């Protein structure tokens, strides 16, 4: 069977701009959560988020380019450029048609949508900018990445709320493994820190007013984030032939639907997704050392996810490290899985398991080793990365340390 390896990674997150800044923040257990500065927060009940404050689009694009690219696309392009440079992948005429672009985003160009709604509904303007549609469409990040890098193979966007980028990466993995492509630029981007989106989240009453404390008994809910993580996936033989540095290997992908409730998580759906991912990897659960959890810090998710992990792993659950990096980069919705796969790859490649930051007090319903507050240096041969979306759509990736 064709193997699929990761040869490039680029990140924009609240922890910093660039892969190195992101994983440095994860190692430090630094929380990127704070007051929102991107927009006027007057009227918001919950004015905090994990905003990518270090990201200034003007550093990366000229004025004309900015006119055509929503913030979500800007972040995706910046991360993609870093991933492609890092991978050193030369897109030849032959490779162009064999390279896929599969990008997750839950909500697409929300700043464009919010800004233009204000213009027409509040300010009574009769017209909006002619490129409003191409800016706000959810496939804009995928399209711009394909254009920027000349990627002419299969390209599409994936929207499954909080699981969007795990679904995107999983599909890229399966596409390469099955021979449908030799390389893929994949991952996710989200920039939903707009007044309208934040109001919608406030309405659900699941947002924390202080910070994100996954698995802690004192947890008070989720914190929105924004950012992008883009990875270059490549067929192993192709990467080896060109002497690429290999960050890690993707070996399994499982997806399920809860078929249960539009917002409440399901133990069964989450457990089946983890089992499906392990089966796809042909791996016994006892080989897994680390799980990057969905870990939103809502009451319902964290206890359900812990119970699902116990059901899947049995006694081995007590030997697992399980952390939620949302405590640091926030819940970046459509970018979440990709940012978390970067954390998972750090565990495999660098032997550093990112902690669950902001952790205060043990919860008997989350009685796993959640790597509280301090990163742990230890060898990780195999790891899982969980994403469980609103709507009951689950996507789990299995990654392996690359040992040639």
């Amino acid at each position, binding site marked *: 069977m064709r193997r699929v390896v990761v040869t490039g990674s680029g990140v924009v997150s609240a922890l910093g701009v660039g892969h190195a800044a992101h994983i440095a923040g994860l190692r430090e257990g630094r929380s990127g959560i704070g007051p929102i500065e991107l927009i006027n927060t007057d009227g918001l*009940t919950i004015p905090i988020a994990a905003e990518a404050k270090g990201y200034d689009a003007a550093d990366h694009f000229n004025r004309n380019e900015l006119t055509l690219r929503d913030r979500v696309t800007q972040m995706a392009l910046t991360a993609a450029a870093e991933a492609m440079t890092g991978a050193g992948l030369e897109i030849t005429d032959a490779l162009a048609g064999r390279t896929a672009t599969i990008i997750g985003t839950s909500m697409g160009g929300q700043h464009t949508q919010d800004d233009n709604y204000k213009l027409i509904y509040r300010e009574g303007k009769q017209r909006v900018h002619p490129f409003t549609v191409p800016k706000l469409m959810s496939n804009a990040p995928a399209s711009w990445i394909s254009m920027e890098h000349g990627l002419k193979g299969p390209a599409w966007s994936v929207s499954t709320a909080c699981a969007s980028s795990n679904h995107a990466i999983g599909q890229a993995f399966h596409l390469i493994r099955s021979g449908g492509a030799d390389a893929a630029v994949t991952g996710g981007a989200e920039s939903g820190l707009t007044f309208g989106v934040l109001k919608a989240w406030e*309405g*659900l*009453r*699941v*947002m*924390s*007013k202080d910070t994100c404390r996954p698995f802690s008994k004192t*947890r*008070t*809910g989720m914190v929105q984030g924004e950012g992008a993580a883009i990875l270059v996936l490549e067929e192993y033989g192709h990467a080896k032939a060109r002497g690429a540095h290999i960050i890690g290997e993707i070996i399994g992908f499982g997806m399920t639907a809860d078929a249960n409730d539009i*917002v*409440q998580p399901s133990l069964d759906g989450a457990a089946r997704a983890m089992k499906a991912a392990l089966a796809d990897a042909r791996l016994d659960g006892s080989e897994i050392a680390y799980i990057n959890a969905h870990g939103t*810090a*809502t*009451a*319902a998710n964290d206890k359900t996810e812990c119970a699902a992990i116990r059901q899947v792993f049995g006694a081995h659950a007590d030997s697992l490290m399980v952390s939620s990096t949302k405590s640091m980069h926030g819940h970046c919705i459509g970018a979440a899985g990709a940012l978390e796969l970067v954390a998972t790859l750090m565990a495999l490649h660098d032997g550093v398991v990112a902690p669950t930051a902001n952790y205060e007090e043990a919860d008997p319903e989350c009685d796993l080793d959640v790597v509280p507050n301090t990163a742990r240096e230890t060898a990780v041969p195999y790891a899982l990365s969980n994403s469980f979306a609103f709507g009951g759509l689950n996507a789990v990736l299995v990654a392996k340390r690359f040992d040639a």
Partner: protein
Amino acid sequence: MSDDIRPQVRAIIAEQAMIDVDQVTQDSTLDALGLDSLGLVEIVFAIEEQFGVTVPYNANDPSSGEFDISSVKAVEDGVIRLVTEEA
């Protein structure tokens, strides 16, 4: 004023629980009326809309004490307090 508010709160709860308002007694718990956390969120929204108040309710921590939802009477009392504070 509170005489007005209590039946309105009970009506909101009854509508969300999809039961007759007569079945909503002051000592009923919302749980016993078949309301889950989403039902509660919708009740909170309806209360905020009807009375023009902001209810301090977090679905992650419904028993945090900021807004008591342990019984129908507790919700009524909480709404009366919020409306009084607002006035």
